[in-house]
């Protein structure tokens, strides 16, 4: 009996086993935790498909339907007493579009906004996974291992960043296929845009995770998400330029990181004048990402450590 057991155990060796180089570094386990979340996503391609379907529908319907340019060009004004030639009207329309959107092409304008949109919506769900982990007891199991508490949160942040950037890339490709203006897109512009999106994804994921750190039920987490997502989207320049908004809303838009990532993207991809300088966009986004990741790591030490 004892011998068959010993055989079944194989090489399992505890007493006096050779010394193993244990990685006790602060960052050990971070990539494994990130990869755990990513696996759930890339192993189910239908998830990727489902998650990009929403922004694509917005692009296709909203972007094509809200044909602001055609507002002027395809209707013929006829105001009694005034006789405005069609060419003048067209010129007026172009000027109006340019001064409002910075481009005559609302679809392209919106396409960049949709990149922010998908980042926002992916980040929003990052908080849900920690609620699940808590409910299933997986979080407790993680906490009983010596992995850094901050890594538990940052693993989720990084997986959310990677996921949302991949989805943003797909949305961009679809937008181009649907007729987005590519005349001014450069490699540097692309890299810069994704850097801005990276920073926004980092800050937003950390923010939503923080809100979920103490939460035990997903209903309240859903409520928080719904409370935040539409205001964050609409009180930004993602769909419509903020300069035409009422003053109080402009203040919100000026504080909203979604505005800055979108603004940077528009300047870099479409070459339109922004509502802040590129430098300020990046400064704001970097500060936002650093602040919330920092606070997120701090809070995870506080709240996850019993």
């Amino acid at each position, binding site marked *: 009996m004892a011998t068959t*057991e*010993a055989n*079944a*155990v*194989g*090489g*399992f*060796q*505890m*007493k006096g*086993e050779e010394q*193993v*180089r*244990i*990685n*006790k*570094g602060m960052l*050990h*386990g971070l990539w*494994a*935790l990130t990869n*755990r979340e990513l*696996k*759930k996503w890339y*192993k189910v391609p239908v998830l990727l498909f489902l998650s990009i379907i929403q922004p694509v529908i917005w692009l296709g319907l909203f972007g094509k339907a809200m044909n602001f340019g055609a507002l002027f060009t395809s209707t013929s004004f006829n105001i009694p007493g005034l006789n405005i030639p069609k060419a003048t009207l067209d010129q007026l329309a172009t000027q109006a579009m340019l001064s409002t959107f910075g481009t005559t092409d609302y679809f392209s304008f919106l396409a960049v906004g949709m990149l922010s949109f998908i980042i926002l919506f992916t980040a929003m769900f990052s908080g849900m996974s920690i609620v*699940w982990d808590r*409910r*299933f*007891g*997986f979080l*407790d*199991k*993680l*906490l*009983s*291992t*010596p*992995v850094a508490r901050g890594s538990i949160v940052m693993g989720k942040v990084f997986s959310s960043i990677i996921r949302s950037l991949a989805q943003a890339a797909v949305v961009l490709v679809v937008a181009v296929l649907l007729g987005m203006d590519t005349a001014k897109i450069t490699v540097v512009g692309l890299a810069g845009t994704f850097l801005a999106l990276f920073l926004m994804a980092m800050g937003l994921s950390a923010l939503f995770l923080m809100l979920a750190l103490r939460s035990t039920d997903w209903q309240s987490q859903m409520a928080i998400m719904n409370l935040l997502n539409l205001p964050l989207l609409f009180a930004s320049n993602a769909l419509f330029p903020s300069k035409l908004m009422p003053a109080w809303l402009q203040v919100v838009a000026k504080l909203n990181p979604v505005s800055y990532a979108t603004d940077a993207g528009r300047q870099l991809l479409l070459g339109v004048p922004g509502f802040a300088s590129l430098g300020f966009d990046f400064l704001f986004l970097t500060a936002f990402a650093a602040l919330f990741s920092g606070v997120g790591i701090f809070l995870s030490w506080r709240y996850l*450590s*019993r």
Partner: protein
Amino acid sequence: MLEMEEAARNGNYESKNVIMEVKGLTKIFENKLKAVDSVSFSVYEGEIFGFLGPNGAGKSTTIKMLTTLLRPSEGDAVVCGFDIRKQPQEVRWSVGVVPQEYTADEDMTGLENIMLFANLYGIPGDVARKRADELLMLVELNEAAGRKVSTYSGGMRRRLELACGLVNHPKVLFLDEPTLGLDVQTRTAVWRYIRILKEQYGMTLFLTTHYLEEADGLCDRVGIIDHGKIVRLGTTGELKSGVGGDAIELGIREKDVDLTSFIMKVDSVTSVVRENDHYRIKAPLGEEAAPAIMDAVRSAGYHVDRISLTKPTLDEVYLEYTGHKLRDEEANSQQVMAQQRTVRRARA
């Protein structure tokens, strides 16, 4: 043979090293509930120490404090030489935990789960892979290793939890109700793994259970815990002899005489109670006392009608110290149902 095993298990622990020292550990939850009430005990290196108690006794709460998941309200504990309050990280490096619930990630395979936990314990990939294979072999999951955990049965999940808790080769392994809801076969298998860990690898095990047979058959020492307090602690042998040892039932033909004080004089008899037509006698070693009693009774001219000897079980110990019986099966099925409800709710 039996006694020898007993003696070996009850062996003198003074010479052994204390690997876990718990002093006045208390947990009061926010709702003022005192789940654990000033428990103190020591666990010796290489032993299997069990907490036996009914639902809600505070077993899991104690484990959660000792494994640094919960902060104690009062009291201290030193685990593997580290203070659970001041050096929680060091404690985590040196212990393993197998929680009461099934906590493996359902979307990953058994192997992936083990590899993930190996990584969290800082074990390099090649070593981790070797250990994972060994552990999967130990818990007989090597064939199912590549399957998603969501396709595992309850018993397979329990065994996977065990493997995950062993991946860092802990000095002390905490097992919270390791055989809850398992069928007899799987339960026996888990007991076998636990004995292997102790006997072949010198691991110290701390387990909780509400199965008396588990505490009796597996543990070297048992603490009976009820309402957050340790009501009794000792080797299973000590606990049993604590209830006065073996019970002898003696029937005498001469019904009209009272032999109580006479029997009491026989060597090693600790108590005699006359009940109707027979005597209930307690003695630490029944098989020696019974013949002595018979001889004494006969030589005094009385006649023995019948005699029977029963060894005490932890059941009686339990009843004696907690005032209520352990309704094993009932508690078990209730709890399994509660567990299944949690999983269903979470999935819905």
